[in-house]
């Protein structure tokens, strides 16, 4: 009796899993949009990524979800590191967690420049 009543209710309140359309590459920015030592957040599927143009002009792309508690990170030009403002976590430009509470590195993506676009793809 209890099962008959509560099972449908519990199934109802837990949302169904909607499979995410697989996104393996996206255009993160136009070439020249970022100056050296600047960064931008871009949408990668239903998650956020961060594209950093390093001082030497090279691009790096990482997942922008902090591995601590999932806040969206930002680039700190003064530190030349990726910083999470929520709990003061720091990552280097390879995505390695170097200070603060993050337990794991950020996922790193591949970056290609083609036809004036910065294309980011999963490794």
């Amino acid at each position, binding site marked *: 009796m209890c099962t008959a009543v509560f099972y449908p209710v519990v199934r109802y*309140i*837990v*949302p169904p899993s*909607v499979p995410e359309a697989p996104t393996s590459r996206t255009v993160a920015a136009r070439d020249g949009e970022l100056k050296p030592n600047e960064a931008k*957040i*871009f*949408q990668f599927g*239903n*998650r*956020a990524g*961060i594209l950093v143009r390093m001082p030497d002009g090279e691009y790096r792309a990482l997942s*922008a979800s902090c591995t*601590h*508690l*999932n*806040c*969206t*990170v*930002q680039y700190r030009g003064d530190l030349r590191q990726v*910083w*999470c*403002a*929520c*709990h*003061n976590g720091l990552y280097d430009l390879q995505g390695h*967690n170097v200070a*603060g*509470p*993050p*337990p*794991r590195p950020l996922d790193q993506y591949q970056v290609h420049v083609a036809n004036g676009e910065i294309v980011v793809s999963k490794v």
Partner: protein
Amino acid sequence: MSDAAEVVRRLRGWIEERTGLSALVDFGREKTVPVHRHSVWYYMGGMSLFLFGIQVATGILLLLYYRPSAGEAFESVQFLMAKVPFGWLIRSIHSWSANLLVFVLCVHMFSAYFLKAYRKPRELTWLTGMALLLLALAFGFSGYLLPWNTLAFFATQVGTEVAGSLPLIGRFMLRLLRGGDQVTGGTLTRFYGMHVAVLPAMTTALLAAHLLLVQKHGMSVPPGVEAERRRTGEPPRSLPFLPNFLLHDAIGWCAALGALAGLAALFPWELGEKADLFAPAPAGIRPEWYFCWAFQTLKMLPGHVLGVEGELLAILGFGAGGLLWLLVPFIDRTPERGDRRTRVFTVVGWMVLAYLAVMTALVYIPVRS
């Protein structure tokens, strides 16, 4: 007797015959409140009830304009504050009153703890009170998201992620709270439902149980006061609840209403920036003051402690600590005797209070990173 007096008398008789209300009034007249040097803490319960009433009243008014969707929530609050006459005042009073309510509930809980009001036979009063405090925090957490601004978005992101870190049930909890894998408009709708329907229903039921238990057992007299009376032979002093104690309560409520009006007028609650799901967390982000101790702990713990992830360790620590605090009436079995064992609980209480205060203060001290 005049005609009007006769009508009133007959109306009262009619109501009395059908409801038996005079029994309730008689109960109120017979009820007394103990008077001693710690009596001031008895007013915290009534103050909590008053602030809860303010929350209900202003919450209903906010519902008239609020629209619970990601596309409209922020704009509806903006409209309410900018265009609706006194909209800013209603929202500010709701926000300030929520904060004062949590503060007064914390004072109420710690005073009950230090005065050992949880001791037999008031264990259930303690448990229902703790559940009400947790519900107030849940109200705060769910209500914080409703304006759909940046701070609210990240607070919800972090708070639900904390629940998602729980062993075994973490992913289930995370999806249950968020209504999916990410914080989206679906989360907002879900939090709205919890804030205006589920939590009020639970609070009403628990509040009724808590008040009934308080009426059944009366106010607890601290063991120290009881021991002193036994030693000196001084008779217990008390105050009639109706009207004396209630009038004292009413003075406090008037002061609270004045303080709320002053805070709302001088420091209107800000709305901030609309949530952007793909913007970085802003510098200086922090939760409401009553979650700051947990925020700071999570910030200070390193990624791994003895091979265990720092956040998991913190969450297990919070859970274990909270459970022990909840079960204190069943652990501290000797408060009546005033012996050394019960003093340990007093010392632990002060340590907990100091921990919460220091961790909270650290959040408000600016640290250059």
